[in-house]
């Protein structure tokens, strides 16, 4: 055969570049708080183990959702329903988790059930919501924004209707244990590890990236795009439900309004973590760094005794800045 070499070899793909960039942002923000801490408070921001663990605890519930949302966004979609699924699942699972003999229980005949019952029913509920999202998107071809917006409103309505707006309380000790202490962090880490592996080392992950990068190419490569989309949204629903169970267990009560705006925080974490809203790019590791950036900002502002209002404003600026930075990085890459 002729040796028709293809002159210019492209640069070798450096897989962790994007994550490294975000990590630098995280280090920069943390150091800023550290310096401001010494100047204004006379103490260290990072050198306080308790503060750091509370910081992670605060964001780990939304972090669980962000893992599911990350794979949805990588596939080129969006999930607005996660916060509402948190609220609805919290209600459903708590109603089956009430302590034995509690007279004002939602189902007086169903108190003191083994913890597996509320856990499984809650997870199944979220899975079902996710499957509905996925099936609508894959088979009716309505945009993910609309399908999940519908689920967002419907699930929130369901949560309110479930007890006509009444909160549900008094869970069994074993259910409460799901949210105790650092349990949410542990659950988050396990979920993150599973999905890090799933996205990087399984066909499930490869298909997800492929669909986000070029759905037509995925189809002609023989991938069943519709089925894969249903799976992706089902997983997102399942993880939202898990977050709902953790929130309810931790608060020892479930309210219909739980999880409001979580979907947007989760999307923001993913976006700050370098997950591209046009699909095909991003990683669990990136989202995890994005989540920690969120945590640092929240606890940093509290530490500096600044108004919570500033937090929100800075958060908004960082979300936009992260995407602008990403667009510029892509442009630069093209030119080289």
């Amino acid at each position, binding site marked *: *055969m*002729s*040796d*028709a*070499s*293809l002159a*210019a*070899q*492209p*640069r*070798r*793909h450096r897989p962790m570049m994007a994550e490294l960039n975000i990590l630098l942002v995280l280090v920069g923000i943390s150091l800023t708080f550290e310096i401001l801490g010494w100047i204004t408070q006379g103490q260290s921001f990072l050198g306080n183990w308790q503060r750091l663990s509370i910081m992670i605890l605060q964001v780990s519930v939304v972090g669980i959702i962000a893992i599911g949302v990350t794979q949805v966004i990588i596939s080129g979609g969006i999930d607005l329903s996660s916060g509402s699924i948190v609220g609805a699942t919290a209600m459903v699972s708590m109603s089956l988790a009430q302590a034995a003999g509690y007279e004002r229980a939602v189902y007086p005949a169903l108190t003191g059930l083994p913890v597996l019952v509320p856990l499984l029913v809650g997870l199944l509920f979220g899975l079902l919501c996710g499957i509905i999202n996925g099936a609508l998107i894959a088979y009716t071809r309505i945009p993910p924004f609309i399908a999940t917006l519908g689920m967002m409103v419907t699930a929130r309505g369901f949560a309110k209707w479930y007890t006509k707006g009444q909160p549900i309380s008094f869970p069994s000790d074993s259910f409460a244990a799901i949210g105790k202490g650092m349990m949410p962090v542990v659950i988050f880490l396990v979920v993150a590890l599973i999905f890090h*592996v799933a996205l*990087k*080392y*399984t*066909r499930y*992950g*490869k*298909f997800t*990236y*492929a669909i986000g*990068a*070029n759905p*037509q*190419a*995925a*189809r*002609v*490569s*023989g*991938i*069943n795009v519709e089925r894969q989309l249903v799976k992706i949204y089902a997983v997102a629903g399942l993880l939202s439900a898990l977050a709902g169970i953790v929130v309810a267990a931790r608060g020892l009560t479930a309210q219909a309004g739980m999880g409001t705006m979580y979907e947007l925080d989760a999307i923001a974490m993913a976006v700050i973590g370098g997950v591209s809203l046009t699909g*095909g*790019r991003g990683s669990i590791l990136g989202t995890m760094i994005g989540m920690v950036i969120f945590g640092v900002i929240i606890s940093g502002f509290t530490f500096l005794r600044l108004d919570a209002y500033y937090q929100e404003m800075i958060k908004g600026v960082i979300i936009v800045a992260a995407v602008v930075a990403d667009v510029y990085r892509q442009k630069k*890459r093209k030119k080289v």
Partner: protein
Amino acid sequence: MLDRTGAWQGEFILEVDNITKEFPGVKALDGVQLKIRPGTVHALMGENGAGKSTLMKIIAGVYTPDGGEVRFAGQPLSVKTPLDALNSGIAMIHQELNLMNWMTVAENIWIRREPLNRLGLVDHGRMRQMTADLLGRLNIRLDPDAQVSDLTVAQKQMVEIAKAVSYNSDVLIMDEPTSAITEAEVEHLFAIIRDLKSRGIGIVYITHKMNELFEIADEFTVFRDGKYVGTHPSSSVTRDDIIRMMVGREITEMFPKIDCEIGETILEVRNLTLPGVFHDVSFNVRKGEILGIAGLVGSKRSNVAEAIFGVHPAPLGDILIDGRHARITCPSDAMAHGMAFLTEDRKETGCFLILDCLENIQSALITRGHVKNGFLDQKTITAKAEEMAATLRVKTPNLFERVENLSGGNQQKLLIARWLLTEPRILILDEPTRGIDVGAKSEIHRLITGLAAQGVAIVMISSEMPEVLGMSDRIMVMHEGHVSGFLNRDEATQVKIMSLAAK
């Protein structure tokens, strides 16, 4: 090879028999046939719209046929999805690139077939090795870990080819595989094809390029207007025979062309070049003249029109209007010079489908003037729009009808009305009658020749041979971004045009 089909010993590996496919309003394929022998390259030839790509998409499971049968190794083949086709041993390189950006070369090639380790996880090491082996065997020098978004178009095309080969299929379909690659890579591709041939694979090769046909193909089949014309061994025919088969239709339509006085040059284009797209395009159009531009898909005719109108300006070369240099960086510059441009795809780049007729007609007019005290002078605009719609006989209950409810022909008339309201001196028409019925077609033809008679200089890009021949005073033929020749009205024939268009 052929282990899936066991002891199969027939003559043809793939047989297409009497396939018919209809799209709304068009019969894309009308009882065509195609028979592929193992270990040969079979070229499929035809003009634009002859139905080649449609048939390939049917074989690859992208479309389902309305009638007829495809047999693979003697057995009827039913493919409903691309996966079915791959599983039955048919791989395809599509005309457009189908790669996943942001993923690596290795991931793109082995998607859905990734090697797994004992834990069921993707074995990246082995996948890299498999890719290196495959690329090595095909002599393609690419890093398996390179990200596809960083590759050049030619490199991407080579990845597509490697991916198609990796399926180890019995039939490989290549739809215009050389449209994006250079001479050296074409040689490389042919070396790969010869190797595949020697291993007994049947190859369907779709091309517009005559010289490629004689270099690589053993047999060829010609389609014309969705119909089967014939199959011959490529050793027994000449280039001219094939061209005659491709264009051999009777021209029965009558064109209302009026011979009118042709005046001085209005538009002159000198050495216009958009690197990598078209090169050294020079022509001029005179007052009252209709210049037809003919060429096959990939001849970049539309790109030239877009460059002149400032949609994608070309960095090199000159555009002169009335003998003076014109700097055109965007469409409004072009409009200021009296140009109008009817785009190729009326649904994508022409109409505002969900807006009403009036909004569609006035959109070009209101970019200039017609404002009173900061408000649109709607009364005058509406009056002009109504008059123009009536002149062009746009069939609509009133101007408040949504454009999507109009027929294709009326949409096209509406778009012409939009541009005529700007009173252009130079009118560029890109496929002015594509996909519209015969009646509307001849009305538009009458309109075009009438405009020329009024002294408008007209540039008309058309893929319909009779239209080009019937309407043009002069014909410019393009081939892959270059002007390959000019023909005067009295000397132009279908065969001459096709010889210039398909080098």
